[in-house]
């Protein structure tokens, strides 16, 4: 099943099960979704539940949050999360903090979803990863699916969850296909929020990743296996809450950690994971924690520079080898 279909079916099933669920965003209705994620939903559920909005993120996000205050379950789509910055006050100050400020009187069962991170060749203003920004905020839950199973299970969980959820998809994954079991296809399927998945078991080094980088990490694991390095790949699935117990348990087993993410390095997801391991499992580390991240620059357009600005499989392999004390020639000698 393609990730796109997985998301579409999750939306469809949840809208069918609960009349309070509705979808709003730019082009979600008549255009069938900018990336076709909401294909067929307008026809099935009508214009009262699938709402095309004007290009006014602050306005429609505020309206979505207000509807959630009243008790509806809106899904607000951002065409990409870059545009969520126009509405970020409503995500943080109106949605995330309201349950706390009202001592639980007002809950906000809303989902903010859309593609996050880099696509291909879309330049600096359309390529940022917002995982660490949103995940630092108490009151939000932040999810990042990788496979079709993740997409279905986590989106259904997000829609059913009574708290505000930021659901970070990835445009380049929409067209990727993954095998899915009958259990995943069942309409009651749901994944727990806050639990990571061990995509591949290993014993020499733990590699954490989320979204598209999980695929890259799995490829890196194949290459490392040929070298006799058995990598354990953790698909985080949930950035907030972060599954610290799972990551710590894995590192206590392997004693080495590489974190992988697409976003900017400073104050990123890997920084949080590294700090967490040092606090809870310092004695188990046999090597410093390695971070593989996007480059510390706005995303360039030229294909070769864009490639340098994002983690590649080679980068993950190299970092894992470093963590296992097997050195490689420095990058200066390499060409792309």
């Amino acid at each position, binding site marked *: 099943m393609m990730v796109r279909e997985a998301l579409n079916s999750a939306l469809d099933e949840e809208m069918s099960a609960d009349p309070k669920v509705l979808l709003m965003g730019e082009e979600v209705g008549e255009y069938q979704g900018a990336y076709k994620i909401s294909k067929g939903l307008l026809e099935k559920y009508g214009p009262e539940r699938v709402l095309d909005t004007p290009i006014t993120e602050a306005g*429609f996000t505020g*309206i979505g949050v207000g509807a959630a205050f*009243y008790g*509806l379950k809106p899904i607000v789509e951002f065409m990409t999360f870059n545009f969520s910055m126009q509405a970020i006050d409503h995500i943080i100050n109106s949605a995330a903090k309201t*349950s706390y400020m*009202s001592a639980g009187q*007002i809950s906000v069962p809303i989902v903010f979803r859309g593609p996050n991170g880099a696509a291909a060749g879309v330049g600096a203003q359309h390529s940022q990863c917002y995982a660490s920004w949103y995940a630092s905020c108490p009151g939000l839950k932040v999810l990042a699916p990788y496979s079709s199973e993740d997409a279905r299970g986590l989106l259904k969980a997000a829609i059913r969850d*009574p708290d505000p959820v930021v659901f970070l998809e990835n445009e380049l994954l929409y067209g990727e296909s993954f095998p899915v079991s009958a259990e995943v296809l069942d309409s009651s399927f749901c994944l727990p929020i806050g639990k990571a998945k061990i995509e591949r078991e290993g014993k020499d080094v733990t590699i954490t990743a989320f979204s598209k980088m999980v695929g890259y990490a799995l490829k890196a694991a194949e290459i490392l296996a040929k070298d006799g390095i058995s990598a354990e790949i953790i698909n985080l699935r949930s950035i907030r809450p972060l599954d610290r117990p799972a990551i710590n348990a894995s590192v206590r087993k392997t004693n080495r950690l590489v974190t992988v993410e697409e976003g900017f390095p400073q104050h990123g997801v890997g920084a949080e994971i590294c700090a967490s391991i040092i606090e809870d499992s310092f004695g188990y580390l046999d090597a410093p924690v390695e971070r593989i991240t996007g480059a510390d620059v706005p995303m360039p357009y030229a294909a070769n520079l864009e490639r340098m600005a994002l983690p590649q499989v080679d980068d993950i392999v190299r970092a894992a080898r470093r963590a296992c004390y097997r050195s490689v020639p420095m990058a200066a000698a390499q060409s792309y």
Partner: protein
Amino acid sequence: MALAHLTSSSRSNLLKPLATVLSYTDSFRRPISTSTDPLTIETSVPFTSHKCEPPSRSVETTPQELISFFRDMATMRRMEIAADSLYKAKLIRGFCHLYDGQEAVAVGMEAAITKKDCIITAYRDHCTFVGRGGTLLEVFSELMGRQAGCSNGKGGSMHFYRKDAGFYGGHGIVGAQVPLGCGLAFAQKYSKGETVTFALYGDGAANQGQLFEALNISALWDLPVILICENNHYGMGTAEWRASKSPAYYKRGDYVPGLKVDGMDALAVKQACKFAKEHVLRNGPIILEMDTYRYHGHSMSDPGSTYRTRDEISGVRQERDPIERIRKVILAHDLATEKELKDFEKEIRKEVDQAIAQAKESPMPEPSELFANVYVKGLGTEAFGADRKEVRAVLP
């Protein structure tokens, strides 16, 4: 007024002959009027409208309603003045934005609607909360950060809520409450409830882009939302003429109709809100501009006299005070005596003092409250205090 004095001082036999002679209606004035006989009163000034027909200046009311206006506004006034003292005594911390002078807007609006209609406002919310049924104890406790507060002491002055009475806060970010209010109206329409939302904002917030974004969507989708601009003519220290190229806020909706209302006249406010509620259920959004005034500065840290003159403030108090206006109406129609009204005020003062005393008894929140309500469903995850090795909690 000699007759009034006579009536109030003795419910004696003197009453009956006088009553027959002067042939009052059968619900002739009792000592404190609880009559629901209709009474029609003209608003102080006519309404000015934009793209709609204004409602009539003649407002239907009853003696009972007018007395309740007086009591409610006097309670709000006394409450805000008491909050001023508590703030100066350092029992209230942080921000404290007082509403005294603007009471007629809160009270007039309530008279036109039900608790199924929704209200959302900004941070000058103490009186709006009381209008929705909030108690003085909840107000003072919340202001002092105590458990008996409406938000268990965790919200503070700007974050009062009362969802079961349709009050959605209490918001600190200028202008954010307007799209939220449009969202409430969206949900009301979606739920087919025949109810409406009043989204209040100030002249300072009136230029916010998100307001126009939400208004556009509300007009496109015919949402039953009433935008009320409480124009007290100053956005913090900036007078309206310095902030808005066009301070005719009731016209700023352009394609959305509007009405300008004397916000110091509770009856005019009631009439406008009644009109607006009927309008939006049929035609989509409307803007009401309430011409009002705040006696205090923007907040307790603003003396309120560096950007306006004391003469202006005392002038408004003399000429347009909302409580004095209702007092005059009540006395002119012989619905109560001056002494009775003063007695109400004394009673109210006592109620407020009692509520403050009770609020002072309420304890501060338990330390475990620090981690409560971050989520509805905490999923058993961990949250950390300042020293995460010392203070950790599991969110249920």
